[in-house]
């Protein structure tokens, strides 16, 4: 709670809890709920919300937990608890946990979505502009939509978030893209677009449609993200080929995070996947394992952290399993270790640190280009490039579920620290922090980077990398970067840690 208090940004004194008119329950009952806005979204007191739904919320026998009776089911959970017991028999992981306090139990929106939404069968919508919470039982044909508009680096991103994936179609109109829901209606909302945005002039929500009115000089890409389901429109100036984050240009300070307790190190490759080969036959997969083991030892000796390796032997491991392991262990950091190679460049040397490319979808850029090519005729009825009939569409939807997108800023910051330490320690040529759609970073639900610690295609670097002393310097450098990163996210000075490695 102390950490949370420091993160309170804004108190919405008169947030309104409203039941959608589509509800079987009295649609007129509207009550005020004083939600609290935190950096991670709004927090709601649970009691009035339960009252609204006709349930009962009582403290548990030992005052440690709560018993929620709703729709003939019993749910037991507690402050900071990681699971929810349904009807005294089913254990459902609970994330995020509710928060206890003097004014009763407070729950984040994500809690409502995960418990009331996925477990208890309600749909939740948070209409940010009105600080209004929309609740409806599943089965209703009305879907709340949450709209978020962000302009960063000349790119406007409009995110339409639905409590579940609707059937929909995106069409282009003269003014811009229009999202049509095919089955459901959009829950009545008085949401109004009040931002002044250089590229998006207006957003109208009505009936089954969300209409984006975009500047005549703008074009857009659209794609989806899962968990929660979002339809995203990236609106950019027509001349802008693709929107990437400049590598060394931090956009904003990283969001505070709870702390650094668990780190997952991923020794790249393994088994039949050897990775890069050095001129004398050194395999990337072997060196990455040596480096990861040493880094684990060093990190655990320097910091009060738990360090897990995705593999401890020469085993082949799917890329998705690597981040899955990190996600399952609620890791606070994911570092994939690699050694580079380049075709025809035996002289290439130095370290590179990557974080995930936001536009990881070359496909998106291509679709945009395709659309611009096809739809260049003014007034053309040509629809924007559609994935309908594209056999990979479903797969793309899954892959675009970039859990990493929420952590890009911290990933970038960590990448910069690692790169800086590696350059400084070894006098390596600065190849810089870069972004790429690297498979192993996709799906990581925490700050995640891929570090290329050198080029084993370069005979000289290959020889150095075979030396344990040299590897130790690399490990020290990465450790220092992690120590600095930890200090940064936990809001204390690096001096609070011993700065010299403990051997």
């Amino acid at each position, binding site marked *: 709670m102390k950490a949370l208090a420091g993160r309170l940004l804004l108190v919405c004194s008169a947030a309104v809890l409203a039941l959608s008119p589509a509800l079987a329950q009295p649609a007129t009952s509207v009550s005020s709920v004083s939600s609290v806005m935190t950096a991670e979204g709004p927090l709601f007191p649970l009691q009035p919300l339960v009252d609204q739904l006709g349930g009962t919320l009582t403290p548990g026998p030992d005052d440690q937990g709560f018993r929620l009776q709703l729709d003939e089911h019993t749910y037991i959970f507690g402050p900071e608890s990681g699971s929810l017991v349904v009807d005294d028999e089913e254990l459902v992981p609970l994330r995020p946990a509710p928060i206890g306090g003097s004014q009763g139990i407070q729950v984040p929106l994500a809690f409502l979505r995960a418990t009331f939404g996925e477990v208890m069968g309600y749909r939740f919508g948070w209409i940010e502009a009105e600080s209004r919470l929309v609740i409806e039982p599943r089965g209703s044909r009305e879907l709340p939509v949450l709209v978020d508009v962000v302009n960063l680096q000349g790119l406007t991103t409009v995110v339409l978030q639905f409590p579940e994936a609707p059937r929909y179609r995106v069409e282009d109109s003269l003014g811009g893209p229009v999202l049509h829901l095919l089955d459901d209606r959009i829950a009545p909302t008085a949401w109004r677009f009040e931002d002044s945005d250089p590229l998006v002039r207006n957003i109208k929500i009505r009936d089954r449609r969300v209409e984006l009115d975009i500047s005549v000089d703008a074009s857009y890409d659209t794609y989806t993200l899962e968990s929660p389901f979002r339809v995203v429109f990236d609106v950019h100036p027509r001349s802008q080929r693709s929107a990437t984050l400049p590598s060394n240009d931090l956009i904003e300070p990283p969001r505070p995070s709870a702390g650094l307790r668990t780190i997952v190190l991923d020794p790249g*490759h393994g088994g039949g996947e050897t990775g890069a080969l050095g001129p004398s036959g050194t395999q990337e997969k072997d060196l990455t394992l040596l480096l990861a083991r040493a880094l684990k030892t060093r990190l655990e000796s320097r910091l009060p952290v738990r360090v897990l390796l995705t593999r401890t032997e020469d085993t082949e491991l799917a890329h998705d399993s690597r981040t899955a392991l990190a996600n399952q262990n609620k890791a606070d950091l994911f570092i994939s270790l690699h050694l580079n*190679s380049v075709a025809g*460049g035996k002289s*290439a040397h130095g370290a590179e640190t990557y974080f995930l490319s936001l536009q990881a979808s070359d*496909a998106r850029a291509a679709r945009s280009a395709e659309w611009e090519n096809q739809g260049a005729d003014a007034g053309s009825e040509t629809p924007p490039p559609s994935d309908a009939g*594209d056999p990979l569409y479903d797969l793309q939807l899954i892959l675009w579920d970039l859990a990493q997108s929420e952590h890009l800023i911290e990933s970038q910051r960590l990448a910069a620290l690692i790169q800086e330490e590696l350059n400084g320690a070894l006098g390596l040529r600065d190849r810089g922090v870069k972004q790429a*759609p*690297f498979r192993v970073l996709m799906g990581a639900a925490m700050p995640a980077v891929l570090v*290329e610690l050198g080029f084993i295609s370069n005979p000289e670097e290959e020889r150095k990398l075979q030396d344990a002393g040299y590897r130790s310097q690399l490990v020290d450098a990465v450790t220092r970067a992690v120590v600095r990163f930890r200090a940064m996210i936990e809001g204390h000075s690096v001096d609070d840690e011993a700065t010299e490695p403990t051997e």
Partner: protein
Amino acid sequence: MTALRRGPLWGFALLVTIWIGCGGAAPSAEDDTTADDTRTSGQTINLYFPGEGGLLYPDPRDLTLTGSPEERVRRVLDALLEGPRQESLQAIFSRPTEVVGVYLTDSGLAYIDLAPAGVTAKAEATQEGDGPVETPEVETWTPEAGSLQEIQMAYSLVNSVVLNVPEVTRVVPLWMGEQSMTFAGHLDTSRPLAAAPDLIARPKADADPQA
């Protein structure tokens, strides 16, 4: 997920192979241009091969690009997989690799199915024979590369195809009939890739006007 459409793609790949008539040893680009002088003369196109600095370098070819878009993609790929002519450039793959099939959707999405050389013949034997089929042992392998080399690998293919065959806007690489999540463990190739002209080295004069 990796086994996406494997069956249909193999089947399709075989169909394409038979239809285009490129089964077995594919005729080289040079053979084509010299064998039939009555055709329209070849046009000079650039293939893009990995070279210094993690970049791709144009390697010109006089190729006759006629026929369906699939045929043209196939021709570009066959020439590309033969390797570069300039000594400073590198082959995309370190071992012989061949095109198994090319499939193009109406939206400009080209599936290019690649495999270690010889795997196609094995697949044909397996698929076409009645009853037990003797299949030659073919060494299968997956590409080895660090991330930068893998980026070169992928975009050598993508740039060469997309920049030479206008009907193609994106490429989905397949490896032995399966959609590859990555070629060598880094770059996500599970989604369609568009051309990346930025990876193509600029002529030296542009790069350093002072020189």
